[in-house]
């Protein structure tokens, strides 16, 4: 059985507050960097609402950088990019807690009929505390978020995120921090292949074109930036 009260209590112990169903925001988040925990319940068939299994993600974002990134991808990406929809608590930079923990069970999920609510809550809390915090707890300002996004390491490697969105966030943050256009472009060079994966069906699938255009947009207060207001 899904025991949300136990989870809410366990997550409160490490500074997360429930903001809506299955979404928790770190109270130690800053205006610059927000941290989230997302719970996901599912069962079989997958298209039927069920709560047989629980998996979870942690997420990290700068809201403005995220908006810029999403708008950039909608502008230059494929047709399906128009389907991206975010509410106030969404973030695409999210990563699986169960994969990080390694002991949640098959498919990095808890089978809720086999473990107590207390055990689930404790394991989720401890995974965050001992596996996530060492990697992201210090990321509370724009400087650190930029460095975090530019790195390619566990628990948040580029291969498990949307590279074009990540690049968009980096461009926005780097511009705000005073990096020059050429430096930003150079910083993204190692990730062009990853960025390009998301652009395979874009009108122009060249990742270098994409990077240059969004850098220009950012610096020129171009289309993407204007559209966010």
């Amino acid at each position, binding site marked *: 059985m899904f025991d949300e009260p136990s989870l809410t209590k366990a997550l409160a112990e490490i500074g997360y507050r429930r903001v809506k169903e299955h979404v928790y925001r770190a109270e130690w988040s800053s205006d610059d960097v927000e941290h989230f925990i997302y719970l996901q319940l599912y069962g*079989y068939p997958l298209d039927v609402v069920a709560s047989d299994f629980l998996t979870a993600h942690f997420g990290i974002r700068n809201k403005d950088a995220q908006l810029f990134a999403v708008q950039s991808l909608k502008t230059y990406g494929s047709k399906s990019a128009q389907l991206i929809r975010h509410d106030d608590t969404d973030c695409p930079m999210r990563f699986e807690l169960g994969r990080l923990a390694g002991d949640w069970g098959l*498919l990095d999920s808890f089978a809720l009929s086999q473990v107590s609510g207390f055990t689930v809550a404790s394991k989720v809390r401890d995974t965050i505390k001992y596996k996530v915090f060492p990697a992201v707890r210090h990321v509370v300002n724009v400087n650190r978020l*930029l460095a975090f996004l530019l790195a*390619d390491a566990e628990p948040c490697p580029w*291969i498990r*995120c949307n590279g074009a969105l990540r690049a968009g966030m980096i461009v926005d943050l780097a511009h705000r921090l005073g990096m020059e256009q050429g430096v930003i472009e150079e910083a993204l060079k190692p990730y062009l292949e990853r960025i390009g*994966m998301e652009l395979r069906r874009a009108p122009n699938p060249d990742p270098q074109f994409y990077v240059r255009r969004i850098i220009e947009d950012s610096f020129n207060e171009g289309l993407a930036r204007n559209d966010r207001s």
Partner: protein
Amino acid sequence: MGFSKLSEFDGQPRPELATGELHGGGHYNPNQPRVPAGHHDGGQWTPMALAASAGSDDGRVLSDASADNNWKLWAQYAAGGNEPNRQHRKGVEAAKQIYLRDGYSVVVSSAVAVDVPGFETPRFYDFIVQDPKTKEVIGVEVKTTFFDTIRLNSDQVAKDVAVVQGGARARVLDYEISGVSYITYCNGCAAVDVRTAVLRAALVTARIPFRHGTKPGETLP
């Protein structure tokens, strides 16, 4: 405030990925037991038996008789028992391991909702992988069954074809999904019979591959 040292932001080298093929094999065995008529499998631990390279793709209608020793399990499934879920998860986990073995990256390791242009409801895949050669991001559908018949779901197939033709968007991570793949597991059958032939043909035309394993957990060739 500004950054001048590029080295601060250099990423770690990415691991090299091996490549692999994901195309199934198998053949139709007319002696295998079948699921009772009128059952809706919907992607569960349901009747199945392979397709792709099988030879069972001739659209023939098979007997609905079921083996006696499978009725108990089937009754449990019909009653919503836990065993089918457990077996299905084992199948999904086995499928994941096969993709990893073949050099694919598992991008999302559990159930994922995918928005497909033109459809009001999402398509759910069991997990998402990335092809090491083409870099295509693929939604994987795992079909499991006690018997040897897989009944495809027309809504799922329509969405699968749309995904391959025009791309779709995973809700978690906002990944573009542009490929689909099926893996099937049964309870020891040598092959699965995929129904209906029309739906199967739609998948074949869209070049959506099938693989088949006789039991969850076995290693596919």
